């Protein structure tokens, strides 16, 4: 039985663990378990299709490259998508022939422990996968600084990513850094606005906005802004927040610290004149001890404000207007992040001009992929990090090239 099939057979329990641990809806958690299984199926199938090259060289030489595993891969993963990111990182690293020490986030790692338990129960050899739960400043710091790791994959905040990369650099350990985003959804007047509207709402409320690839900025062309925002406001007003188990539109934030940080930021925004055009509501039965922040649509935002620049990691969509394509491009690129961009227009030339000009690792035209796309290389530019996970590129990133030059005379 493949590990993907083993995951699928344990689907409901894994989804329930992910739901109670992260607060995300049951529906989302089920999707995440399905994605995790797909990662193992994809990388399991890809494992024997990864090979080097032969290189034309001088006449009396034959030269080839081998793709070799690093050996000891350290992986530090976050609390927002533990199941999916387990698949993304562990499946790729193992398929490339490495072994793994995984440090999951202390806020949410129950699904990861269950996945590890399933691996052990089903015969994964001892030592190939190790899981060391704990605090970032203890277990995470010790792992990133360990002299015997040979690769580090880190997914988390830019600030912690800097510390992890610095620690790894002491021993010249290569790193993949996936550090979040402030991704724009760029909507032109000629777009299919119905399709755009639904994707934009989903792209910011999924996992209560605690998604690195969340579409957290809406850039809308001025001539349709009033109509589009009034439709969007209707949708936001109808959104409901409740416990993960209640399977509402939006769950809680992960903990009290994230909630208080976001609320403090929103308070500063209000003081600076930012207005919430629409808010979701908290369900009647929602616990007062839950870390809920209702979805919000923010307008009238001063240029350069932190809600336009910083990753808020909550269900908060910040709106800006633009006149034309040139201004859209400037606004799209006005953050230090560059993870994803959504472009909504029927104009083919404009689609390609923006896709080329936008500073990001992924571009979605007339769709928005959020955290999906097992087969699609994913990663950032600038403050969103470097290196690529997912897809075949992700598999390659867990190997290094050895060049073999043979002089045969």
């Amino acid at each position, binding site marked *: 039985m*493949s590990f993907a099939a083993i995951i699928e057979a344990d689907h409901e*329990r894994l989804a*329930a*663990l992910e739901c*109670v*641990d992260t*607060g995300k809806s049951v529906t989302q958690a089920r999707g995440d378990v399905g994605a995790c299984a797909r990662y193992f*199926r994809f990388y*399991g*199938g890809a*494992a*024997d299709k990864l090979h080097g090259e032969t290189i034309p060289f001088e006449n009396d030489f034959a030269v080839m490259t081998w793709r070799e*595993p690093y*050996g*000891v891969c350290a992986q530090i993963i976050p609390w927002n998508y533990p199941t999916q990111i387990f698949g993304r990182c562990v499946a790729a690293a*193992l*398929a490339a*022939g490495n*072994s793994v*020490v995984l*440090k999951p986030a202390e806020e*949410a*790692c*129950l*699904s990861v*422990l*269950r996945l*590890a*338990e399933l691996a*052990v129960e089903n015969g*994964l*050899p*001892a*030592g*190939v996968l*190790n*899981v*060391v*739960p*704990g*605090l970032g400043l*203890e*277990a995470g710091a*010790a*792992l990133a600084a*360990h002299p*015997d790791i040979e690769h580090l994959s880190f997914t988390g905040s830019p600030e912690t990513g800097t510390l992890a990369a610095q620690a790894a650099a002491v021993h010249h350990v290569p790193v993949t850094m996936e550090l979040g985003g402030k991704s724009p959804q760029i909507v032109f007047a000629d777009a299919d606005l119905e399709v755009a509207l639904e994707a934009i709402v989903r792209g910011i409320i999924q996992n209560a906005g605690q998604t690195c690839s969340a579409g957290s900025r809406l850039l809308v062309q001025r001539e349709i802004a009033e109509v589009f925002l009034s439709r969007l406001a209707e949708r936001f007003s109808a959104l409901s927040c*409740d*416990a*993960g*188990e*209640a399977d509402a539109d939006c*769950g*809680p*934030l992960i903990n009290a610290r994230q909630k208080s940080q976001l609320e403090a930021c929103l308070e500063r925004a209000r003081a600076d004149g930012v207005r919430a055009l629409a808010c979701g509501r908290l369900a009647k039965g*929602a*616990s007062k*001890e*839950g*870390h809920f922040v209702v979805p919000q649509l923010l307008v009238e935002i001063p240029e350069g404000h932190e809600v336009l620049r910083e990753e808020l990691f909550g269900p908060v969509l910040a709106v800006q207007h633009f006149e034309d394509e040139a201004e859209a491009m400037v606004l799209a690129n006005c953050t230090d992040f560059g993870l994803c961009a959504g472009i909504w227009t029927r104009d083919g030339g404009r689609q390609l001009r923006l896709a080329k000009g936008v500073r990001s690792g992924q571009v979605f035209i007339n769709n928005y992929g959020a955290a999906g796309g097992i087969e699609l290389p994913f990663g950032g530019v600038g403050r969103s990090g470097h290196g690529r996970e997912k897809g075949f590129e992700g598999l390659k990133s867990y190997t290094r090239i050895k060049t073999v030059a043979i002089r045969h005379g």
Partner: protein
Amino acid sequence: MQFLPQMPPSRALIGGDWVVTQATLDVESPSNGRLISRIARCQASEVDGAVRAVADAFSGRVAHVLRRDHRG
């Protein structure tokens, strides 16, 4: 809490063994603040053990875990 699934091991997985750590961390539900589980709180010594376990696994018999009949 409407339902609470059966919890996985609250320990660390090191070299194929589920290892108990001296300290543990509480896991609380973001939806209602209730304690739902406890997990291991690994320190540098456990991390070091895990890295050594990987090194052993990698240098030995299991460098290639993919069997021909498992290929896709």
